[in-house]
């Protein structure tokens, strides 16, 4: 039988999800897809993650070229369909080609709504809908400083968060009296606003935009109330409108969207529609869950099955803004008299939970601050089960029945939805794991699509693979510290803390082989020191020689002495002392180091304490996994480009942190302007002066690896800049793995998380971090001053030389 020709217009999420379902049924179709966008099908939801720097554009593709090839789908990329002739069953593309179809599927999605105001065509004004928009916004982020997002809905807030991550100052303006007014009640709006402001995003409500001002490029936003704010970037997130032009021109019945029946058919029996472009029972959707529901029904319809019909979807939203948990679903208002509201508010923790009950059934929910229960409520709503006994603990999950029982995912009913985006149930995942012998989360993702939406359910999926696959489960290997102490590093830290182990030997005796080695002994030395904030039991023999004698061992066994020169600043008196010492002790070489200070090379171990005493300077810790130095440029003191006092700030920063041990060495730089003469952007921590403020950058390197630092934050005052540097510094001390430089630490942990736990953390968290730092700092000493007077051990610096004429004690014995 000749295959039927199926033409799909739109290569987006709905179209391809529906095709996936159709292909599962192995139909006799010859499939052709037209895509206006020049890309393979990608996950539009994750554009927010791309903008925020959490994912790269390459990581969000759903289907590769291979998928199209294997399924024999002819794909026309970058080819817009401009006409549908439903009488002759042909379509016409922009490039002038025409194709015949037997069945036509419209999956054209929607387009951003741009309000009719002046100035939206200026340069620097963007919408945020597809990969191209995202690329253009990201390009402009490199030079832009102040962004205004018009629209405080889901999309606007996600865009604002992304721009903030890119180092821009961001204001969100919203027409209504609360953010996300479509998904939140007034109280929820207030909670959300506080959370958003805490991130550092300015929020302006009840603002009606009059026009976007400027010349060729946008310069500001003017409101109807006469007020105005400057902006060199504007992102319009004012809602979406279904793409219905083709359908209308084809003569289909169109209202707000393309009108479809319960089997997703349009008014023409050969034409179907799915996704954001459709209107079903007077509803138009703007989320992915409904389009997966629709896709399944439509696939059945098209392949001749007469299964269940589409009855509409329960709407649920999760805000994908790092640092904020928000979930809203169904009828969340509950203001009609026959509805009951169960609510909980905790302002200090920013937690708001509200459940709407109607005739004994949960019909809506809002969760802010803690959305971990979202799927539980969604499930109750979907099943429409009477609440019954659960009413007693509706807001929080039932207490565990007995100590042995768990609330883990395996104990849930098979019908429970695990992946809310795609609509995959527990039963489906378990079956997939069993039947296909899946061993990893990514295999489950490939097979069932679970966790391929917003990804928040990946943890649950992992639990399920673990439970079903049992011993064959393949986890990413957790690295242990070393063979002598075979425990993961994080776990060791916890054990040392909770069991109050104060010395390296204690740890080795209890958890290790009792001996240790060149790697774990120094590592444990650092950990016990860091965990106990300097109040550990120091064991010199567990330290590397450099840390025993506070100098850097050289290839011939001699040492080098690098005194501290804060910010790279010295003076004649210091220089004279250095010169005198160098002559007196016949130091073979004096060198200017790469770190803006002087190095006396080739010093004998026994001379070290004498040299320190005569120099009277502080140790530069050039030998340790510790704070090395802060390089500075000349800055406003002398430089004609300087915008900030880099010298004074550099010296200050060095004073605040010197003497502290770190997982790996920490080099810092402070520069007065972006010309970056002291190379702050390739330092572990850098402060870059800009007009009216500082950029604080982290994780840079210019050693064996070269890595440009990431922007942690942009702040106005020097105090704020120093605080941000200190927060990151201590966070790295507490979470970095031994020998892990910041340029590995930052990408491993993720910039987003680091921000969330440092500069964007709650005041309590920040105070705690700074408190730890202060305590450790109080214990930090200048080892040169201490040990030139009284070494840690009387023979710390002493070797033994036997005079030539030493008398032997002679014994008669057999060896």
């Amino acid at each position: 039988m000749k295959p039927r020709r199926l033409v799909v217009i739109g290569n987006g999420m709905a179209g391809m999800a529906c095709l996936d379902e159709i292909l599962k049924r192995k139909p006799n179709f010859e499939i052709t897809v037209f895509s206006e966008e020049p890309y393979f099908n990608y996950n539009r939801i994750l554009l927010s993650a791309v903008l925020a720097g959490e994912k790269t554009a390459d990581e969000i593709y759903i289907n590769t070229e291979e998928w199209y090839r294997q399924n024999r789908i002819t794909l026309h990329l970058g080819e817009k369909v401009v006409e549908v002739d439903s009488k002759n069953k042909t379509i016409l593309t922009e490039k002038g080609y025409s194709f015949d179809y037997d069945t036509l599927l419209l999956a054209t999605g929607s387009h951003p709504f741009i309000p009719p105001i002046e100035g939206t065509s200026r340069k620097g004004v963007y919408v945020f809908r597809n990969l191209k928009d995202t690329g253009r916004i990201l390009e402009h982020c490199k030079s832009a400083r102040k962004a205004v997002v018009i629209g405080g809905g889901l999309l606007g807030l996600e865009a604002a968060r992304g721009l903030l991550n890119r180092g821009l100052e961001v204001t969100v303006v919203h027409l209504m009296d609360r953010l996300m007014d479509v998904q939140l009640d007034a109280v929820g709006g207030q909670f959300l606003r506080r959370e958003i402001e805490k991130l550092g995003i300015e929020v302006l409500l009840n603002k009606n935009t009059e026009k976007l001002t400027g010349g060729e490029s946008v310069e500001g936003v003017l409101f109807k109330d006469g007020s105005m704010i400057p902006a060199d970037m504007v992102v319009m997130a004012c809602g979406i409108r279904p793409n219905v032009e083709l359908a209308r021109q084809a003569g289909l019945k169109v209202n707000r969207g393309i009108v479809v029946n319960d089997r997703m058919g349009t008014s023409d029996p050969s034409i179907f529609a799915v996704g954001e472009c459709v209107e079903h029972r007077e509803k138009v959707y703007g989320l992915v869950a409904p389009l997966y529901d629709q896709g399944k029904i439509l696939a059945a319809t098209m392949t001749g099955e007469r299964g269940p019909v589409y009855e509409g979807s329960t709407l649920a939203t999760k805000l994908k803004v790092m640092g904020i948990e928000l979930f809203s679903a169904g009828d969340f208002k509950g203001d009609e008299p026959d509805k009951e509201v169960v609510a909980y508010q905790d302002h200090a923790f920013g937690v708001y939970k509200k459940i709407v009950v109607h005739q004994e059934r949960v019909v809506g929910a809002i969760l802010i601050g803690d959305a971990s229960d979202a799927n539980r409520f969604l499930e109750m709503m979907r099943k429409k089960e009477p609440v019954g006994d659960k009413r007693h603990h509706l807001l929080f999950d039932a207490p565990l029945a007995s100590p042995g029982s768990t609330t883990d995912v395996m104990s849930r009913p098979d019908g429970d939805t695990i992946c809310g985006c795609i609509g995959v149930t527990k039963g489906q995942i378990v079956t997939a794991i069993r039947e296909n012998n899946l061993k990893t989360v990514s295999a489950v993702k490939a097979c069932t699509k679970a966790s391929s939406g917003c990804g928040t359910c990946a943890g649950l999926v992992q639990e399920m693979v673990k439970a079903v696959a049992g011993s064959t489960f393949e986890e990413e290997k957790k690295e242990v510290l070393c063979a002598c102490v075979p425990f993961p590093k994080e776990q060791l830290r916890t054990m040392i803390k909770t069991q109050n182990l104060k010395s390296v030997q204690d740890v080795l005796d209890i958890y290790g082989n009792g001996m240790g080695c060149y790697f774990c002994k120094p590592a444990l030395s650092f950990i016990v020191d860091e965990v106990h904030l300097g109040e550990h039991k120091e064991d010199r023999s567990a330290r590397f020689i450099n840390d025993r004698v506070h100098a850097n061992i050289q290839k011939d066994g001699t040492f080098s002495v690098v005194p501290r020169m804060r910010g790279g600043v010295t003076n004649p008196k210091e220089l004279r002392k250095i010169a005198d010492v160098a002559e007196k002790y016949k130091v073979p070489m004096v060198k200017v180091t790469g770190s803006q200070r002087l190095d006396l090379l080739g010093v004998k171990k026994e001379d070290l304490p004498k040299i320190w005493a005569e120099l009277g300077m502080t140790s530069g810790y050039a030998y340790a996994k510790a704070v090395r130095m802060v390089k500075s440029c000349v800055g406003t003191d002398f430089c004609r480009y300087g915008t900030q006092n880099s010298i004074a700030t550099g010296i200050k920063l060095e004073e605040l942190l010197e003497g502290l041990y770190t997982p790996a060495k920490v080099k810092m730089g402070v520069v007065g302007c972006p010309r970056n003469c002291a190379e702050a952007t390739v330092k572990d921590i850098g402060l870059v002066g800009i007009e009216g403020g500082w950029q604080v950058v982290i994780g840079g390197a210019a050693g064996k690896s070269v890595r440009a630092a990431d922007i942690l934050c942009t702040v106005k005052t020097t105090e704020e800049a120093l605080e941000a540097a200190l927060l990151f510094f201590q966070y790295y001390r507490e979470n970095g793995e031994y020998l892990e430089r910041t340029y590995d630490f930052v990408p491993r942990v993720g910039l987003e998380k680091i921000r969330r736990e440092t500069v964007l953390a709650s005041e309590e968290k920040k105070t705690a971090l700074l408190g730890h730092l202060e305590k450790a700092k109080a214990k930090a000493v200048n080892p040169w001053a201490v040990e030139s007077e009284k070494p840690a051990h009387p023979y710390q610096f002493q070797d033994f030389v036997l005079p030539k004429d030493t008398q032997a004690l002679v014994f008669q014995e057999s060896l």
Partner: protein
Amino acid sequence: MTVQWFPVAELGAIPKNEGRKVSFGEIEIALFNLGEEYRAVDNRCPHKQGPLADGIVSGKSVFCPLHSLNVSLENGCAIRGAGCVKVYPAKVMGARVCVAFYEGKQ
């Protein structure tokens, strides 16, 4: 046979699990306090002559401070090959640590 024991350091001069360099004319050895006993080997690592006395002790072996070669203090040989150093007998006599400066077992 006759053994010449040279007193090189007072008991307690070398902290536990550390080493010190001892020179006697042309000879330079690394003397270690392993707690229960003292051990002495040539102070030049078989790799690139690193000063073993400044290494980190691990049981009855030491890791060279320059490139972390692990050298046994019992037989003087690198645990994973790469050569050996001389071993010198060492023992405590009264309040002193003594070393016999002649070639010991390899």
